[in-house]
């Protein structure tokens, strides 16, 4: 295809991506180096006829607004936002390490810094939910494959629901059931006879229920992909494995799993990308007291009364760096494969 025709075809799509994905990334980087203006203060002398004069410091709101209008980005801050307490907290960490009473204490104190708290949950969510959901999806795929044909359709139908559902809606539906007043929450309270037992009160329970939501909503995707993969397992290989005396488990271990391995890489990649942006369940479960994520931090900076663009920008840049680190193995592999093909 000639270059000219190629670009004629792809131009609209390319323009959309450059304008609304590439430029915003640049804009986020620029924003992260600026910080909001501090308010303009003026010293006002207040003189009363008999009391003499008092000096008072006031906020000059007109001047503040004018400054804001003139420089909407705020003032230049360099890497200041990255290093402050809300982000990488370099000074705080140095202090924690020098004064801590052992490893556990240091970790606990670092966990209390907002950025690291969010990072911890995001990573745990990514690396716990992804393998669990894949294992569950694989088990369901094996199970559904063994079912009679008539029940397969309805089973797939119901299995798709948790995946297709709007994340915020899905997490609300689960949250209302796990709530102390909801069916599951109330039942658990009855069983343990403990009326104070509540999802929101305990960080461990909050994390557990968020992870449960993650597995619930991610498992169907692995199930569908693995189920489709199972249909392509070569019958001959299975049969010869049986003739060689392989048990059921050995057939799964040595024939089916190797056959599905490339699919598993794909599923793991997609789910890691999606789970890294975990955000809606935290809003749906109102879990921000016990669990936050990187995306939630950005949302929180942007949705307050005063929008902290600098802070949101810095968190965004750090998140994007995280995404690139996460994608690195794939990018390197694709690059190598492409070079081999060219040579």
């Amino acid at each position, binding site marked *: 295809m000639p270059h000219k025709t190629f670009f004629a075809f792809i131009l609209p799509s390319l323009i959309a991506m450059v304008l609304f994905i590439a430029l915003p990334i640049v804009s986020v980087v620029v924003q992260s180096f600026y910080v909001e203006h501090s308010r303009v203060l003026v010293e006002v002398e207040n003189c009363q006829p008999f009391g003499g004069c008092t000096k008072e410091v006031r906020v000059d709101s007109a001047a503040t607004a004018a400054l804001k209008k003139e420089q909407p980005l705020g003032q230049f801050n360099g890497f200041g936002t990255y290093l402050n307490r809300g982000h990488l907290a370099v000074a705080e960490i140095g202090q924690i390490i020098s004064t801590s009473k052992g490893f556990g204490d240091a970790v606990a104190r670092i966990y209390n810094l907002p950025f690291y708290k969010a990072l911890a949950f995001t990573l745990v969510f990514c690396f716990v939910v992804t393998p669990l959901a894949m294992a569950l999806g694989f088990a369901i795929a094996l199970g559904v494959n063994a079912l009679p044909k008539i029940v397969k359709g309805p089973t797939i139908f119901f299995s798709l629901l948790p995946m297709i559902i709007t994340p915020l809606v899905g997490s609300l539906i689960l949250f209302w059931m796990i709530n102390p007043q909801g069916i599951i929450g109330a039942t658990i309270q009855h069983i343990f006879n403990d009326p104070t037992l509540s999802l929101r009160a305990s960080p461990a329970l909050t994390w557990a229920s968020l992870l449960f939501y993650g597995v619930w909503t991610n498992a169907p*995707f692995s199930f569908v992909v693995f189920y489709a993969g199972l249909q392509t397992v070569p019958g001959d290989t299975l049969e010869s494995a049986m003739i060689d005396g392989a048990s059921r488990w050995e057939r799964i271990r040595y024939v089916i799993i190797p056959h599905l391995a490339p699919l598993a890489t794909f599923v793991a990649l997609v789910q890691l990308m999606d789970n890294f942006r975990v955000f809606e369940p935290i809003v749906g479960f109102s879990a921000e007291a016990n669990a936050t994520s990187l995306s939630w931090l950005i949302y929180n900076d942007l949705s307050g009364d005063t929008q902290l663009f600098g802070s949101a920008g810095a968190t965004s840049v750090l998140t994007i760096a995280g995404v690139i680190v996460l994608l690195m193995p794939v990018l390197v592999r694709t690059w190598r494969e492409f070079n081999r093909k060219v040579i």
Partner: protein
Amino acid sequence: MSESLAQKRPLALQTLITMLIVLWVVVAAFPFIWTVWGSFKVEVDFFSRESWWNAIFGTNTLKQTGSTFTGAGYYGAWVTREFWRAVGNTAIVTVSVTVISLTLGTLGGYALARSGQRYAFWILIAALVFRAMPHITLVSGYLLPFFQLNIWGVLPTSIIVLVAINQPFTLWMLHSFFLSIPKDLDESAMVDGCTRFRAFRMVIIPVMWPGVVTTGLFSFLLAYNDFATTSMLLSADNQTMVPKIASFLGSVQEQGKVMFAVAAVVSATVPLFILVLFFQRQIVSGLTAGAVKG
């Protein structure tokens, strides 16, 4: 696997498998059934501390309204809190996003599938990286420029942004779909004297609909399910369904009108339910197409 194999399974294993699947189907489906049922009750029944039998039989619903089912939640959400407006906005946004993404995506995906140049590969890799960006990081880049340009808060802005966010995925999916259409088809048309555009229009468009429908379903889902972008980019008057539901949570819970939110959540689930009912095959094939080729 053959039928004879399936029959040889021992009874214990078959029971175990059946139990696992039944358990999974219950875990997957019960929350939806429960919420749909509960949305027709009053709050003290659906959120009953005493016993969940109240929610099943509607004990307090009967006492308060004189019937075991009530549409009060739906009336409150749709009429009092004007949820219908959000539904209309969602319809506009999702339809526009799907149509525009597919138009741009088919052209781009076709070009990528037929080019074979080095830059086509780089565009695909860039699209993969863009696909992985959390949407909220992009949103924090939009806000300030959009405020400056005075285009914040209106539907067209959100539509264009969602189209752009959707492009990487659409390009990948349609790229791999067009790869599966034999090159000879359009090339023979070009040998017969068609230009590339004419070949695309006369030969490719008639055969591309299965791939376009599948990709369209996922574009629709992305626009429909989005919360990060629409909640930050739309003003309160122009909200779509999902941010509207989120706004119910802040204001409604104190007023003791959680049932409005429950009714709105159920209303937002219904279209997805219908979608899966009619397009189950396309959704499954779309999920696996990406997997087998990508």
